[in-house]
């Protein structure tokens, strides 16, 4: 932190949101979005998780340092810090678990094209690839090997029916607008354009809402 950061913090005109709040807001938004969206969303590219993980690690080290000190005054601070750490860890853990659950459900789908593979983090990609390989080997050794050669694949698209199960992108989701905007959504009878204001909650299909969420005009709730 240099003098500019300090000045920015005390200047009410700069409207600076501190980095900690930004990270927490970003993490919370990612978690809620991942919990609500029917498909796997992009892994955050701006290094948010590296930042969050290193912060959690240093906070744990701080707790270890403080535990030796049994002064009742710091003791209460310790309780607060630990409570907050657990809350933060819950967010991270629940986010990662949601992603793994989605990857487990449609592994072949997310591995099928390059653009879908881009959504996974390097660790998730390694997990998905190895898990799928193990599973396929297991199937092969237990029953697939007794099938004719041309029926042994798990990703056939014969007869215009793909064996790869993919998530239903038309599932209804709730979104909250972050700016005033006219929202276009596809419906069964009519496609609607609805003028909506900042903070409004809308029900629409994920396929229609996806663009809004990716542009930062709306967030999932």
């Amino acid at each position, binding site marked *: 932190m240099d003098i500019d950061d300090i000045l920015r913090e005390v200047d*009410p*005109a700069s*409207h600076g*949101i*501190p980095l*900690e*709040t*930004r990270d*927490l*807001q970003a993490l*919370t*938004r990612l978690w809620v979005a991942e*919990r*609500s*969206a*029917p498909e796997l969303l992009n892994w955050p590219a701006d290094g948010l998780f590296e930042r969050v993980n290193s912060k*959690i690690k240093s906070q744990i080290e701080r707790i270890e340092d403080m535990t030796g000190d049994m002064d009742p005054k710091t003791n209460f601070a310790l309780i*607060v*810090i630990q*409570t*907050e750490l657990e*809350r*933060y860890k819950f967010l991270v853990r*629940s986010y990662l*678990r*949601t992603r*793994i*659950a989605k990857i*487990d459900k449609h592994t072949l789908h997310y591995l099928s094209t390059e653009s879908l593979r881009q959504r996974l983090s390097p660790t998730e990609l390694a997990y998905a690839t190895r898990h799928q390989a193990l599973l396929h080997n297991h199937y092969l050794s237990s029953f697939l090997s007794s099938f004719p050669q041309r029926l042994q694949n798990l990703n056939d698209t014969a007869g215009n029916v793909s064996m790869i199960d993919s998530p239903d992108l*038309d*599932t*209804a*989701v*709730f979104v*909250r607008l*972050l*700016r005033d905007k006219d*929202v*276009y*959504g596809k*419906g*069964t*009878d*009519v*496609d*609607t354009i*609805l003028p*909506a*204001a*900042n903070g*409004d*909650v*809308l*029900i*629409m*299909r994920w396929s*229609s809402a996806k663009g809004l969420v990716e542009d*930062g005009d709306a*967030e999932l*709730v």
Partner: protein
Amino acid sequence: MALPLPLGLVPSEVAFLCEMELVTVVPRQRLDSIELLSGSTPKLRPPYRADLPLWLALLLKKQRRANIVPPAWLHPDSLREIVNYETAVDVKDWAPPPPPPVRADSRGNSRRFNASDNDIVLSPPFLPSCTATAPASALPYHWFEFAEMLLAHASDDVPSASEVRSLLRDLQEARAAKMRAKITHPDSHGEGVTSLRGVGAMELAESRGFVVGVAEGIRKIGASAETTRRDEEEEHGHDMDDDLSDDDMGL
């Protein structure tokens, strides 16, 4: 199974989010600033008020280190006004949400919290909609769970708590009926976007399964009609293109 929960936030997760709402406390003891992952807490010096996240405020309250100042919208008069709005003024839509919070600078100007020059937009629970400065007569996004938690853990800080409790129950019933009416009303069926302006987080969480189920059912029933409609529109679009190109030829 990595996560045995259904799609969409469940009520306990909504309550977790609500615990991040900022709330105003009056400390009863001095407490130095604590460095947390979500930023440092303000120094607590009685009797100066400070804004803290709800989970921390409840922790301090349980240890009798602070009292919570309930927001203006939780006052019985304000709640009565909202109940009146919900039951008499507008029987179809919910009461409008509070206006976007504004912040004053030292030069006498005020600006919205989410000025466009910020690269990240804050949304509930990070907007100060439950602090002592929050406006009366409008329910913020996390109103129900916030009020419940405050009444459960700090009912002695809420003026006329029993009245507030019964008003909240009236509100909840009136608003839940609106949700059911809105979703099952035939007008809203088959449309692409339905607005739930003014709805609360817990109300969404409790009727999420119902709402999504109805929407899915309607989509599946109308799927073939929709495909036909889209094909027709596409053909129509092609016709228009042809017309245009004919015009171009004419020119």
